[in-house]
């Protein structure tokens, strides 16, 4: 790669100098003199943009923790390994849930639980299908346990795709020696969460592995939901002028888990925000039918979703740092650890893209729901700088918010 680039780059450099000598007065005057100060820099930026649009490739020989962190490496792994192998039109959008069509156009949804879905749609019955696996450590933490996550996480993947969640599956991988009482606690919390979300766990599976081959208890859940006719959400539908809304304070879950591990000797009065978002999502869709997309902000945090909007819709995103709701405790912990709350996981927050004209109505609708009382517009979709997420900082400058690389690491000094 390096060798292949040396030639064109050296060439680009000399061109730039020639360009500067000859002037290009129009382009210069059009922009700020400051922006024009380095044509060479702009060319480098364009080259980087091209490099970033190239097909991703996994370079590592082995899986590292970064592949699971929800950032750049995760995305590369999914695109280069899984999408490549399984490629089909249903998988390709890489949304939180796949949207499937069952039966002939005009057929009815078997159960009349879905508002509006009992009416035979011109497009047939559509189901949303998703799956997620839970390996959180510790298994129990302030505000919840792996059980609630396993139900809420999968319910949320369905809810943000616009579906009404109906049924879940539950698969358990248990480590030899795991206490039955703990398992019973996990399962009881799953039942409670399922009841709260209005879904049933209808089939499951259990495997036990030798001591040391797993960490207590891992859970996989899959979920099926029904899509009302005409529902079609996706971040690729974002358009310049759209507003981007976050449904509540960000980063609570991630910080709770980091502190619950006890490695940091920091204490704070915060708990996980794990919650089922189907009620909140349905409220938004009812009040703002033109909603373009929803995503739940889990691993990789809100920043990852903003980047997905920018890259999948090939638009720019301009967000305002001050607009993001962040609890003081979370901000404080982030400042101490040198991490950015924008990258910290939530388990009960969604990010919505709505047409700019609907922004106020969407915020009002979300705030009317108990899980969305602190909803706020945090940014807008722009036609400038496609593919980039820019942030106006509290300080008043502007910077990029990129996909996360690796695990969030604390700064060392």
């Amino acid at each position, binding site marked *: *790669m*390096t060798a292949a*680039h*040396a030639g064109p*780059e050296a060439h680009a450099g000399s061109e730039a100098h020639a360009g500067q000598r000859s002037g290009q007065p129009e382009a210069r005057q059009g*922009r*700020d*003199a*400051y*922006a024009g*100060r380095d044509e*060479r*820099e*702009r060319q*480098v*930026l364009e*080259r*980087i943009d091209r*490099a970033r649009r190239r097909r991703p490739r996994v*370079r*590592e*020989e*082995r*899986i*590292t*923790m*970064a592949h699971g962190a929800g950032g*750049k*490496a995760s995305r*590369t792994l999914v695109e280069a390994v899984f999408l490549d192998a399984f490629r089909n039109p249903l998988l390709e959008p890489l949304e939180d849930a796949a949207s499937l069509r069952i039966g002939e156009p005009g057929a009815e949804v078997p159960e009349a639980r879905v508002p509006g879905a009992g009416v035979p749609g011109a497009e047939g019955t559509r189901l949303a299908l998703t799956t997620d696996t839970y390996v959180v450590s510790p298994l129990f933490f302030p505000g919840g346990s792996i059980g609630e996550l396993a139900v809420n996480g999968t319910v949320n993947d369905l809810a943000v795709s616009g579906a009404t969640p109906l049924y879940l599956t539950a698969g358990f991988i248990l480590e030899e020696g795991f206490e039955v009482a703990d398992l019973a606690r996990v399962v009881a919390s799953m039942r409670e969460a399922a009841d709260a979300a209005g879904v049933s766990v209808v089939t499951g599976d259990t495997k036990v592995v030798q001591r040391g081959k797993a960490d207590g208890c891992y859970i996989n859940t899959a979920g099926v939901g029904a899509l009302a006719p005409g529902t079609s959400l996706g971040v690729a539908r974002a358009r310049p002028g759209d507003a981007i809304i976050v449904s509540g304070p960000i980063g609570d879950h991630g910080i709770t888990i980091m502190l619950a591990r006890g*490695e*940091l000797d920091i204490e704070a009065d915060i708990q996980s925000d794990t919650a089922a978002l189907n009620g909140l999502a349905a409220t938004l869709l009812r009040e703002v039918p033109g909603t373009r997309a929803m995503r739940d902000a889990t691993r990789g945090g809100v920043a990852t979703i903003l980047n997905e909007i920018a890259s999948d819709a090939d638009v720019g995103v301009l967000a305002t740092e001050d607009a993001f709701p962040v609890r*003081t405790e979370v*901000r*404080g912990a982030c*400042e101490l650890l*040198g991490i950015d709350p924008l990258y910290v996981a939530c388990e009960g927050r969604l990010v919505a893209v709505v047409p700019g004209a609907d922004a106020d109505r969407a915020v009002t609708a979300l705030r009317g729901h108990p899980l969305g009382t602190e909803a706020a517009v945090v940014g807008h979709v722009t036609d400038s*700088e496609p593919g*980039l997420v*820019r942030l*106006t*900082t*509290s*300080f*008043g*400058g*502007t*910077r*990029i918010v*990129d996909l996360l*690389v*690796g*695990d969030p*690491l*604390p*700064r*060392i*000094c």
Partner: protein
Amino acid sequence: MRFVDEFRDAEQARALAAKIAALCEPGRQYKFMEVCGGHTHTIYKHGLEDYLPESINLVHGPGCPVCVIPMGRIDDAMHLAAREDVIMTSFGDMLRVPGSNGSFFDAKARGTDIRMVYSPLDSLKIARQNPDKQVVFMAIGFETTAPSTAMTMLRARAEGLKNFSVFCNHVTIVPAIKAILDSPDLRLDGFLGPGHVSTVIGCRPYEFIAREYGKPVVTAGFEPLDILRSIYMLMVQLAEGRCEVENQYSRVVPWDGNLVALKAIGETMELRPYFEWRGLGFISHSAMKVREKYAEMDAELLFKVPGVRVADPKACQCGEVLKGVLKPWECKVFGTACTPETPIGTCMVSPEGACAAYYNYGRMERHRVPVTIGERP
């Protein structure tokens, strides 16, 4: 939030920016080096350059502890970590730095026992839990982190812990600044002094910069207003024809430093005759090793360390970036072959590295915040 928001106030920033702009002599270019990687990070993370006039250029200095570690030392550490009887610990940033055979994280994926710690003291916990293993802490950093390594060694000695040692890579800032001042490549108008290092060593060690090299120094804090105010203080010195060491970060930095911390360093470590810096080459008396008195905690004596010098990858221009000769984007592989995901050079690894900061935060066309010159705050 208290102690944070008051240092990030946009109103004050605009007022300072106006005062800075008013001090610029027409036609003159100013080049200030921020020595510390923490400053580089703040500058990009908050978009601080948007407040500076075109004639003021910030040059990123060598004060990123991860960035200055030469590849050979990383290979040495990997060699130690690969031993069956060793558990290696280090700070998170260090673990992503590539050696000639991948990073620590890659080694971890291959089964080497490498653990990230937030404090060197955590290594003692691991040592207590694993009495049959030797726990080696890969110590890195300037005088900022050296005291915590020193305190850990003192604690280990007090506890009588037999299975803890240090692979010492602590470096000292003053020889690096001197190397830059002596380098013919760069003409600077002043320095933003490293705030965190100064909490330990104080401001006195920089006096030679003003006295012998005629460059003003302002020791700066790490919030964006700290940095903007320090730039203003440098501009005032230049405008008034003064050349002194000033302390903007006086809420944290005592003029004489932290004597307790300095004593702990002095007790456990001593200067090496010379040490290799990435990009800057060998600099005499620029790093510390474990004092002989603590030889039982010196991993370099306990184990055979290859000590092979490894040349940087050909395409990598970290050295020029560290010296401030090249801007990150001027490096040939910046952003294409070398990205935070697939770093070739150290500057792309640590969030404090100039390349990573520029790539992650600054990779776009800048728009200056409009300021009214002559505005009186």
